[in-house]
């Protein structure tokens, strides 16, 4: 089947998509956007988090056909050209990135959290990120990164 949608503000078309493919597969393997990750492909880890019409979703759980005519934003679309988004900057600065496989999903999840709750308390951060697994960091520096990003966004 054919999928037409808008990804990171650009009209994209994928042809010959098999009906069983997920949005994650189409993004990664057909549209050249491997930023959303494939740690489980069954909705358990959050590494594939993208925006679908402004809502964060696990792209691995979205059948590709459901993205037809809709608006998708991936981690690749958050920065402004070469400029990192403040959330991305905070992850690098805080040491919240080790292997980095969880990072794209977390960056999108934190981006969404701060859009809704600009100054989240620790409990709110933990609750919001409970669906995003990280195996490397023990989360401490991820929390630091969120606080850091929140502080900056608060200022600006």
């Amino acid at each position, binding site marked *: 089947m054919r999928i037409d949608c808008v990804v990171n503000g650009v009209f994209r078309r994928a042809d010959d998509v098999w009906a069983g493919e997920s949005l994650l597969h189409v993004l990664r393997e057909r549209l050249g956007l491997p930023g959303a990750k494939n740690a*489980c492909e069954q909705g358990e880890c959050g590494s594939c988090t993208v925006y679908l019409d402004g809502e964060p979703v696990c792209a691995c759980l979205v059948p590709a056909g459901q993205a037809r005519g809709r608006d998708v934003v991936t981690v690749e679309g958050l920065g402004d050209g070469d400029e990192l988004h403040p959330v991305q900057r905070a992850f690098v600065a805080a040491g919240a990135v080790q292997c*980095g496989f969880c990072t794209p999903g977390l960056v999108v999840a934190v981006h969404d959290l701060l859009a809704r709750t600009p*100054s989240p308390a620790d409990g709110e951060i933990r609750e919001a*990120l409970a669906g995003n697994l*990280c195996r490397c*960091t023990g*989360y401490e*520096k991820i929390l*630091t990164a969120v606080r*850091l990003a929140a502080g900056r966004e608060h200022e600006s």
Partner: protein
Amino acid sequence: MAGWGPGVPGPEDVVSSGPWDGVWRVGGGVGGPGNPLWAVRLDPDAGHPAPRPPVVEAGADGSAPGSQGIGTSPVRPDGALKVRGEFAFSSDLWADDMLWGATLRSPHPSATIRSVDVTAALAVPGVYAVLTSADVPGDRYYGLEVADQPVLAVDEVCYRGEPVAVVAADHPETARRAAARIVVDYAVREPVTDPEVALAAGRLVRHVPIRKGDPAAAAEVVVVGEYRVGMQDQAFLGPESGLAVPAEDGGVELYVATQWLHADQRQVAAALGLPAELVRLSLAGVGGAFGAREDLSMQVHACLLALRTGRPVKMVYGREESFVGHVHRHPAVLRYEHGATRDGELVYVRARILLDGGAYTSTTPAVVANAASLGVGPYRVPNVTVDAYGVHTNNPPCGAMRGFGAVQACFGYESQMDRLAEAVGLDPVELRVRNALAEGGTMPTGQVVRGPAPVARLLELVRDRPAPPPVGAELWQLPGGMANTTAPEQVVRGVGYAVGIKNVCFSEGFDDYATARVRLELIGGEPTALVHTAAAEVGQGLVTVQAQIARTELGVERVVVATADTAVGSAGSSSASRQTYMTGGAVRAACRAVRAALITRLAGGRAGATDDGGGRVDEGGPELAGGALRDAAGRVLGTLVDLLAAGPVEETVRWRHRPTRSLDPVTGQGDAHVQYAFAAHRATVDVDPELGLVRVVEIATAQDVGRAINPQAVVGQIQGGTAQGLGLALMEELQVVDGVIRNPSFTDYLIPTVLDVPPMAVDVLELADPDAPYGLRGVGEPPTISATPAIVAAIRAATGVPLARVPVRPEHLTGTG
């Protein structure tokens, strides 16, 4: 960034603690936006990297000369790419005309294969190849230490999930569906799944005995216990994956996530029947490792399919497949008897440790040796009798996982130390301090511990930290969590301690080396160092560390770290906490060889090649700093711009740590290890005894790292390793029933989430090891080792339940299991 007093090494997020006492501290057990501890932690602007290709590591904008060398925490060169989603992990690779591979695996833990019929699979449109063991042109068996694991099953299968055939097709789903159409006729056998039965049946992989002192020693106080450790999984997030591309010369290029490129190369080449130089590996982005990428997974399969089809082949495991696609932590049964005087001085330790190695050998021999040689922990024990056994069963193969061998033993000996403390009426920390190993102490193997061994100090550091706040008021802070099942008044709190020991680098006489190539040249008129090694960056920050060392040694700002590949000599594995020691040591040695060549050039001679250049001009000679060769007074003898005008200087060094010896096969005596590393933990837990739910409130770590080459990465390793120890204590276990993993998903195999991991305070000691590069000590494994027993000790303290098994399940606490 926070400033540092002279001589005070530390990361930008260290909270200084008044007069320098040799310890730097991170976190305080409480955190939050309003906490002044966080306010001083980071200046985000200082960390803003410019986007760069992954191999380039340059000085940060406007940074002072030398500011990005060792002891600092420069921005990781792969950080910006990773946060943008542009870092190429092994599952992200893509090639024109690429096919997808899929694997057919055994549904039985043990069976004879009568026949395999691939006809129906080959008939599926879009399928390009279906291969079985008959199609393996070279060695049909591989293995890290013993080649006993079939590339594809040969006449039998010995564990559930063993690869039997592989398929290449033009779509991953086509490949999977075709694989499902392969007809295998199995004669199912009764699997051996009990390691005791396996041992009795002679399925021994290795027995390591340790004998020290009087085997019949008697003591006034004796405690006996039996402990069990479940099968833990590394559960890295990036699945096994890679891309094999056939080459015009008949060879193959393999882009893969691995821990040891050259060990893969050796095994893949043997299986393909090709000389090593025709099997060229490059490291693709690695989504975590923790030991699980030390053995082969899809490497040979993808290469076989690529060579057969003449097209690039990509293989990516799904999560369920990943759970059978790599080795796990050995489950263990540990019996301990500790004898002590009435005032708590250890007289003897006797132990029997049984480790289930599963179907194939993998690294079981080394795991057994670690469990045996580290089996009494970091304590002075005059009389020791330890027997550790590893056996073959039809369970999933077990091998390397962070802290291997030492993790299992530590749960046993630390549980015993708590019981002994109770038996003699001593505080658990006091008992440990009384028996603590120290510099110059003797291990049960007879090896004398060289260099600092601050076991007592580490325990005191965690003990003396302020206690965490009382039982939390918010739901997420209670054992029942967001499910709102716990009333705060029913919560009981406990505190527990543990300390552990780990060997760093490869042991027992293994020829352990790392290779580094360093080239210094003018690029755009600026002196630039190019560092090339085959060392696997698996997330730990090794690429950053290599560049830091080059800056410090060569006195240059611009350093480029090349992609790791097999075009340069082996770096050994990113395991055993060894890579900063070994590849760091090799990069330092190669830099010093470059310096020696520059000195020769300065003197008008020719720069000579060297293969052992490490340390030749260590003392007294000219130094490289600030872009010039300088004498001891700092006067410029020659600038790099002038010296390099005649052309680049390049040196390649193969660097070794001091030799080790094998263990005597009867007594277990011998200087088997290079370096010991220590960490201690204090865990504070809240327990809901009615529901058997546990929340870890805080876990504090103290660790001696010798020298923190990159303080931010050191803390990252300590916190990440501690979280994996928490996982083993409370939730992580592969449930293997009759040889079948019952929970191969992240829904059923639980790893800690951000709601499970508490604030993790860290005290870092830097007591230099005189034998190691810069005095550093391996960092990655120690925090995983003692975290588990500390948490279990805290639960015992809270509940009084004599827990003897990890992970602790709710039914162990409610008495319903």
